[in-house]
């Protein structure tokens, strides 16, 4: 039988498949951060169980960590306790932790690929919905809850229901200045935040092949925003090139063995997907979200929609609510919307490529009066690389703040946040109400779009720059 890549990975990881219970699948890699793990460690301890395979785990601290003045103690006592608990738990269980002071520290989904910890064909989990990021390597990677974190630590397996398969084809090539982020937002806009529910997406087509590994990570990262369990991109030469020589990548004879296996993983010619969605790369304009759900997006050359433009009653009501929350009027041109704060960073857009393109746009500009602009690298390695390339100077000269790595304003747990009514251009992944601070208004964009908005003080169609 012809199989999709998802089906190949699924079949090779089935441990138990018996009638009357959910199939058990094996987990190769388990990623951790401080927010969703403490209760799992507590549960493990209370039940007298041990971590089955400590080498399968890589942990970092990212959600609550300050992005400036790291040498000072964490001011928030509850965050401080969570950070300390993470360190204690990792120490007690012999786990590899990149703590706040470690030069490898950063956002989990940025750090893990940097060290070659995820390979094609693996099953990868993390108590974090953006685990989908690692699908960029052709790994089945998905977010789990804290009870499941405990389950995986204790058993190295998870009871799972097999997903349906969705192929998202992006034909042709992207236009200049459209990016992986714009593809992700355009897909979410097209199929909705529940469009992928119950599915694993495989992204195919020439526009996907043309994406760098960083771009593929951005794309897969937001598979969850379309409701999908995971996103996948078939591995190719770019994948192998990226992995080769990294710390946890196979070496020596193992490299050739692994490579042969990875090459066998791509979906068979003619394998059937349960559903297929097609986009034309050239049609994807730089996207801007206007509402409070990642499906509420429009091209930068568009306008804020009117509730009446939605035939569906639920969508009409959602539009009304979003416009009220966002303080926007229907039919306002997107390029007329002002911004107060610009954030470049997160597991979606906190990689070197993101800072390169943003710096290209920011070079020689000044942050507009009244606007605050934050550049928060996804990891210390990204930070160092950017500094080696002189990108930090470009941002600083343009009036940006150049920070230490962390999740920062993506979910505003660490003190970096919007105040009520403030409006951001953000390269993160969610524009939910209050996501970046209570009453804060988030517009999701690509790094180039964010950098242009910082200089202009409002959104700009970067294709016209």
């Amino acid at each position: 039988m012809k199989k999709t890549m998802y089906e190949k990975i699924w079949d090779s990881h089935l441990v138990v498949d018996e009638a009357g219970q959910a199939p058990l699948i094996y987990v190769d890699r388990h990623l951790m951060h401080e927010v969703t793990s403490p209760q799992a460690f507590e549960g493990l301890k209370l039940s007298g169980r041990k971590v089955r395979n400590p080498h399968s785990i890589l942990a970092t601290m990212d959600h609550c960590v300050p992005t400036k003045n790291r040498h000072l103690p964490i001011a928030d006592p509850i965050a401080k306790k969570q950070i300390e608990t993470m360190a204690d738990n990792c120490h007690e269980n012999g786990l590899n932790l990149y703590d706040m002071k470690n030069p490898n520290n950063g956002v989990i989904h940025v750090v893990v690929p940097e060290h070659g910890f995820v390979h094609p064909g693996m099953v990868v989990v993390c108590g974090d919905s953006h685990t989908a990021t690692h699908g960029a390597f052709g790994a089945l990677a998905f977010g789990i809850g804290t009870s499941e974190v405990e389950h995986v630590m204790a058993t190295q397996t998870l009871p799972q229901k097999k997903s349906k398969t969705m192929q998202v084809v992006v034909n042709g090539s992207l236009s200049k200045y459209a990016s992986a982020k714009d593809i992700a937002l355009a897909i979410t806009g097209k199929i909705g935040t529940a469009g992928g529910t119950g599915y694993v997406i495989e992204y195919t087509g020439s526009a996907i092949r043309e994406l760098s590994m960083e771009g593929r990570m951005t794309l897969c990262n937001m598979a969850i925003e379309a409701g999908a369990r995971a996103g996948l991109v078939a591995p190719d030469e770019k994948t192998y090139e990226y992995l080769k020589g990294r710390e946890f990548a196979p070496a020596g004879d193992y490299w050739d063995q692994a490579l042969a296996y990875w090459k066998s993983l791509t979906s068979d010619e003619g394998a059937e997907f349960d559903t297929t969605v097609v986009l034309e790369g050239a049609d994807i304009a730089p996207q801007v979200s206007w509402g409070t759900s990642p499906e509420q997006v429009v091209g930068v050359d568009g306008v804020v929609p009117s509730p009446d433009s939605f035939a569906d009653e639920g969508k009409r009501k959602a539009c009304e609510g979003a416009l009220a929350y966002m303080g926007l009027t229907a039919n306002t041109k997107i390029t007329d919307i002002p911004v107060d704060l610009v954030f470049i960073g997160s597991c979606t857009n906190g990689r070197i490529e993101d800072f390169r393109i943003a710096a290209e746009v920011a070079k020689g500009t000044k942050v507009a009066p009244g606007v605050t602009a934050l550049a928060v690298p996804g990891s210390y390695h990204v930070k160092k690389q950017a500094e080696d390339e002189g990108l930090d100077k470009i941002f600083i000269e343009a009036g940006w703040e150049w920070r230490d790595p962390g999740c920062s304003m993506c979910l505003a747990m660490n003190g970096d946040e919007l105040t009520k009514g403030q409006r951001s251009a953000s390269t993160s992944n969610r524009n939910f109400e209050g996501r970046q601070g209570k009453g804060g208004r988030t517009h999701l964009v690509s790094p180039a779009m964010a950098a242009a908005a910082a200089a202009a003080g409002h959104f700009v169609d970067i294709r016209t720059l």
Partner: protein
Amino acid sequence: MEPYLKHDSIAALMDRNNVDTDQIIPKQFLKKVERSGFGIHLFHDWRYNDDGSDNAEFELNKPAFKGAKILVAGDNFGCGSSREHAPWAIADYGFNTIISTSYADIFYNNCFKNGILAIRVSQEQLEQLMAEINANEGARFTVDLENQQVITPAGNGFTFEIDPFRKGNLLSGLDDIGLTLKHVDKISAYEVQHKQNFPWLWA
């Protein structure tokens, strides 16, 4: 986990789609290292005014919904983040049942790990239930998981589908990990094979 028993309870209504986990439990409450005590923060930003008083406009603050164990909500409930703090907050607040047309995957899984029955209904059924609650706020529904039935005073009752594995675990209150560890020999055997097939993962 407490076994899920047949019960009748007030059904509260949230007539909103795409309720995300950032609303269910906003991020400022995710820093605790315990599982308990999240109920008072459930829907915090909608539920409380800036001065900390109850927001009378928020549906769950209606006196008629006080003590509700059943939550009837719009499409795609629980979308967004994987935070299990969301079902912890829902359960701690007192809900043990959610009725909606659809749920985000991770949230749905998380519910069943915490004794919450998440029931899927058709759009038509949901609209009937919503209309019934709107007409009679405080109406009590009966949920019978054993027989996969919901009964309502106005006769909008229905039977629902549920995965037998999830149903069994809810009814018995059994721990998933314990069930999986019954297969520990199979896991060990798989690992032996895995080491042969993928030695580079174990190097």
